[in-house]
């Protein structure tokens, strides 16, 4: 039952995303292209953040001379 509500909520959020970005008016293959580009760019950003965040934080702390 809870899963149904969650699914409905996600479905409604997806509908809002489709409306705001005007993907609602595009054909399914155009939506697929746009979504895959968006997901790949976002995925790459998240991955880069995950890999390099420790180094960046260490560099900042080193700059502020809080750690050697």
């Amino acid at each position, binding site marked *: 039952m809870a899963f149904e509500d969650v699914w409905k909520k996600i479905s409604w959020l997806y*509908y*809002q995303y*489709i*409306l*705001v*970005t*005007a*993907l*609602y*008016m*595009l*054909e399914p293959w*155009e939506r697929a292209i*746009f979504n895959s580009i968006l997901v790949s760019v976002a995925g790459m950003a998240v991955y880069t953040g995950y890999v390099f965040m420790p180094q960046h934080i260490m560099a900042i702390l080193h700059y502020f001379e809080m750690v050697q």
Partner: protein
Amino acid sequence: MTESSANKPANGEVCHRAKNGVKPGRNGFVKNHHHNHHQQPMYCYPEDKVQHTACNGSSGLGLYSRPFIESFEETPMLVAVLTYMGYGILTIFGYLRDFLRDWKIERCHIAREREEQKDFVPLYQDFENFYTRNLYMRIRDSWNRPICSVPGAKVDLVERVSHDYNWTFDYTGRVVEGVINMGSYNYLGFAENTGYCADASAEVTMKYGVGVASTRQEMGNLDRHEEMEELVAKFLGVESAMAFGMGFATNSMNIPALTGKGCLILSDELNHASLVLGARLSGSTIRVFKHNNMQSLEKMLRDAIVHGQPRTHRPWKKILILVEGIYSMEGSIVRLPEVIALKKRYRAYLYLDEAHSIGALGPGGRGVVDYFGLDPRDVDVMMGTFTKSFGAAGGYIGGRRELMEYLRSHSHSAVYAASMSPPVVEQIIASMKCIMGEDGTTLGLDRVQQLAENTLYFRRRMTEMGFIIYGNNDSPVVPMMLYMPAKIGAFGREMLKRNIGVVVVGFPATPIIESRARFCISAAHTKDMLDTALSVISEVGDLLQVKYSRHRRLPSMDRVVDHSIYDQIQD
């Protein structure tokens, strides 16, 4: 003139406070020159344009006998940014599709040049064609819907589907019945196939037939036409009137007969295409003043009189001001008292296009002149159409007798266009008699009052629900803002799924980010229909998240305003 009227105190007569209780003196009126002023009632954001005009001395000598409340809430910044982003994405995909069509990867359904014309000047590369191919076609199913019954309060639509994304439509053979009609210009509910008007038209068809087969000047001047024109003149309160077969043609063919080279036309920013076309055809100089903005109009009049024609500085032969009674895309009502005051002072002529306001405004249904309680003889040319409130077709022009005699022989429409068809003429006569009360009943006045009540109720409920509604509180045209391109198509489709027919409008009829859904209230709508429609609109509004208004007003019409609050506000 503006200085003296600004500083003159209220001239001794009783003046009614505006309904929101704002005191006359506190209206930021320091800079003079203003008939308009921005009063800031407590619940308003300062950047929104909400114009209240109290009828005291500050607004130009008590010209308004009732509060003139218009609101055009500003577009929320986030919504504007997202709308531009949406259009940007659509443009990118439009270029992609055009590329595919050009390289023949995809079949092109729309017009393009032939192979042999490849090196000619390109025909279809401009923005308008790009827009039509790539944006309009995708949501085309919200427009041109075929209907198969009389467009009264409820209408039947022919169901159609498209299998290739709106390039072609197939009819399923079914009919969608009982769709609540919020889109027809049926303000007084005269679009009906039963009743006194329909019977009278049917009788006249039996007697005169349907076609007239001539122009008014030759053999097409029926006695019904004469009677109709006398009736129209009586209805409007002018000396004489003349009717034409098509409302658009009335404007575009008669303005050239009234002005020519050496004349000046001052036309409102948002005038209808027929007025613009007529002004351009006439060959006069056209200057555009800001929408409903009396300072802009006054400045232009002063410049015109002081400087005269552009190079020679001779005085203008005529100055004609073109305004409309109700602007159908904004729902705003013209500030007629101020326009007439300006016209009298600067000796200009006024052409008032009452296409949407005749029959729909005013206690007697006589239009915007009646609504403000002014004298019809002050307006030089009163134009209107029979399409909207009278359930017929065609347009009329009313004015002084000499003007009408001149137009009868000099107007293109009178000389070349075929006369109006007899059943249409009879419908006009019957409906006008009904509105005036000459058929012995009070049906007409009841309809006018019903329309006013419906309008007030609908607008109040819509603003309470949180939609952004443009226009004057009294206008039966209610534009509701949608902004985003995908929501235009989504709104039209979702409303039709729930059995309500609406008109959605986008570019180029409106500015590109200000797309809207336009509701036309009718006297034929019962309160139940309006309630159904409002609940569906609210549901769809929640689904699509179009309740953008930032001032949710609490549902209260009769709350007493606390006047002492305003003493504490710093200006």
